[in-house]
């Protein structure tokens, strides 16, 4: 009877595993979705393509950590499994009340602590310092990103590299989504787009703003993420690698309302020529719209 129930049991387990595998197989068959622009880069169940010069530091930490985690887990799991098998209850076996020596565990804990300290002071704090305060001085592009429910606006300062003043009272969602002021000389050559264009191999300083709620500017391929907090302008920076021209995604990583899931924009990494052409197109005086 007892044996029988265990067989049923194993059969159930087997069934579950088969079912699990089928669902994985089904999973592969998700058709790519048309999102208007072909997105470059490789995406899968691990870290996506990295097109940023400094992104490897993030990847390196993540990889080192995972190796460490898996190593610890496997080692620990082997001991665990060994105990489960060796010390299972059986006739004639009684628990050994003589306690195990404390040393191995103490060494393990100390080792873990030291390793964490190394990760913290070696791989994390210096990188964070670089990312947060060593802003590029090599004539970076400056772009202002203004988040709103549920879209991204990219405000370019134009040739004078100065942003015009923004006034929330004159915002018009069709014609002046950021409330740029006509009488501000610094703002004369500014332009605003819904696409993010940067030049490959050139560092970019992005100032992040929000009109309404907290959003989060997330570019997976750049290893960049920064919350857009209303009432604050938070600058971040990144630099794309050479030869990375293409279209990539920008997402919102902080719940911002109904359409949080569709708050997506496209980042175009352009060659200098492509960028110039795009600027020309965007800044051209609008022609009259004629319905066909």
């Amino acid at each position, binding site marked *: 009877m007892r044996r029988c129930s265990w067989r049923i049991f194993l059969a159930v*387990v087997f069934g579950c595993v088969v*079912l*699990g595998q089928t*669902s*994985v197989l089904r*999973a592969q068959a998700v058709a790519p*979705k048309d*999102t208007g622009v072909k*997105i470059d*880069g490789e995406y*899968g*169940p691990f*870290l*996506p393509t990295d097109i940023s010069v400094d992104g490897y530091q993030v*990847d390196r*930490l993540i990889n080192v*950590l995972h190796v460490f*985690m898996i190593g610890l887990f496997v080692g620990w799991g082997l001991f665990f499994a060994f105990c489960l098998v060796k*010390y*299972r*209850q059986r006739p004639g076996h*009684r*628990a050994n*009340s003589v*306690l*195990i020596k404390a040393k191995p*565990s103490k060494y*393990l*804990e100390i080792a873990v602590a030291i390793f964490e300290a190394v990760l913290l002071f070696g*791989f994390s*704090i210096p990188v*964070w*310092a670089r*990312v*947060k*305060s060593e802003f590029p001085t090599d004539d970076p592009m400056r772009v202002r990103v203004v988040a709103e*429910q549920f879209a991204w606006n990219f405000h370019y300062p134009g040739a004078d590299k100065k942003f015009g003043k923004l006034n929330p*009272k004159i915002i018009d969602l069709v014609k002046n*989504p950021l*409330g740029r002021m006509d009488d501000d000389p610094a703002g004369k050559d500014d332009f605003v787009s819904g696409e993010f264009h940067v030049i490959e191999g050139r560092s970019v300083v992005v100032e992040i703003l929000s009109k*309404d*709620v*907290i959003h989060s500017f*997330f570019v*997976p391929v750049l*290893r960049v*993420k*920064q*919350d857009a*907090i209303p*009432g*604050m302008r938070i600058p971040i920076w990144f630099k794309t690698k050479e030869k990375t021209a293409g279209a990539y995604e920008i*997402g919102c*990583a902080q*719940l911002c*309302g109904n359409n*949080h*899931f*569709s708050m*997506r924009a496209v980042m175009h990494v352009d060659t200098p020529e492509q960028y110039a052409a795009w600027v020309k197109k965007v800044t051209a005086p609008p022609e009259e719209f004629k319905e066909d």
Partner: protein
Amino acid sequence: MAQHQHKGGGHGHDHHHHDDHGAGHHELSYWRKYIFSVDHKIIGIQYGLTALCFLFFGFSLMMIMRWQLAYPNKPIPVIGSLFPSFFPGGAMAPEMYNAFGAMHGTIMVFLGVVPMLVGAFGNYVMPLQIGAPDMAFPKLNMMSYWVYFCGGVTMLASFFVKGGAAQSGWTSYAPLSVITQPHQWGQTMWLIGMVFLITSSLLGSINFITTIVQLRAKGLTMFRLPFFVWAQFVTSFLLLLAFPPLEAAGILQLMDRVAGTSFFMPEGLVVSGQMQSYTGGGNPLLWQHLFWFLAHPEVYVLILPAMGMVAEIIASNTRKALWGYRTMVYSIIFLGFMSFIVWAHHMFITGMGQKMAAFFATTTMIISIPSVVILTAMVITLHGASIRFNVPMLFALAFLPMFAIGGLTGLPLGLPVSDIQLHDTYYVIGHFHYVVAPGTIFAIFAGIYFWFPKATGRMMNEALGKVHFVLSFIFINVAFMPMFFQGLAGVSRRLADQTGYAHGNAVQGLTRMSSWGAWMLGLSQVPFIINFFVSMFAGRKVSENPWESTTLEWSAPSPPPHGNFKSTPVVHRGPYEYGVPGIAKDYFPQHQAGAEA
């Protein structure tokens, strides 16, 4: 009770309830006995059943959400057509997804797990384990339950008001939570419900601490307390000191919503192209600070009692003393203390400076050490043991690797640099669900199987229990393991449909796998539900100590009568004297007089 009862004199008894004071024990009405009871065991069971219902409800919400994630915008089978007002066209709208998500989190944390761990197990087991006749303030205890119940009802009612339930996540970040549904009641009811739940927890924690300090049996020193009691003790301090800031934050947000103040609203908020009339001058990050000041200790509220339960079960079923008991106690106290100064690691990407990030990353790394210590101690307990693989032990054993995964994956999130990529992705979801679902929920199952005979006098069925365990163990991993890969891929959490992103679409298969895992996990609970209710009436009858355990609760009859113990227990030794050499039986109960070990 005689030795604790202070003085003679006719008025010395029954101070609390002079109204019930009378000659002889008249029977209480049904209402006083089972509904508005002041007996900690009845209240514990009330808490337990209510929390189980909420856990099931919260899980159901998630199962519906998993459909939307796996098959975005496709009509939900059966349920979609049953509630057409919730699911227009049978499919789930993104705003409904957000509402379900917010309520899933809130219900699971505040209405399910905490009431289950603290309200149910704490209330039922802790007084028994310390040899107390009841909680220190029985009426307050009853009030805690009913305030919790009101909070739960408020939360559930919010689904049916205009605009639906709160949609801003369980974290309710301002300004989103203030400006969403401005004319509607969902978020406001969430806040009011939270005030109820906080009040309930505060009253409960006062009761727990007082009980543990004042009502321990004679001879039960602090270092003879079972580890579970220690866990409850630390947890109660966390609840007591961490919840009030959230209550304050809740009041401020309520003012922002109802009175139009600007505590969390900066100047010049433009929503939908319209200038808002808030005066401004507030700070959205204030909410986050106050929220996480609670919510990080809250994470430990979710895990410490679970660790305590697992420790009890492991000690009993390894027939061995808990290894490094004192170290574990110091660790848990340290853990509780440190949990108050790590909160800002949830806020690394809000624009934090170097010093602050370094400080909170360091405290976060430090807090991982005591967790490692506790886990290691529990594993080393297995060494040289004689392990009984009964159902509670299986769940308790599964807790260990599951909690290890949950804990380890916390590391990349605690370091600001790796957090840049992983923050608010599915990696976070995977991490804390591994801690709370296969961690805490498994501990809860272990606890239910373990203390069920104490509460009912009957055993739960072992075979059904094992089926329940194996299925749950497999599918909980199928459900949560893919999330780490989704997270690495960069898929943000709280997306109603990730397929719009190329990186989301690339791992949509994993999402489906996770969804199937979740539904199968739901099905896997059927054996448990059957087992639970059938065993209540038809389970094998057992004596007072079916597991041959040492702690005090097993010296009381099963189920314990009013006042708990037949005679006032006196404690002679530590909590885990198993396998003491020179004694025929392999366990030596705390209350048994005899040679000290």
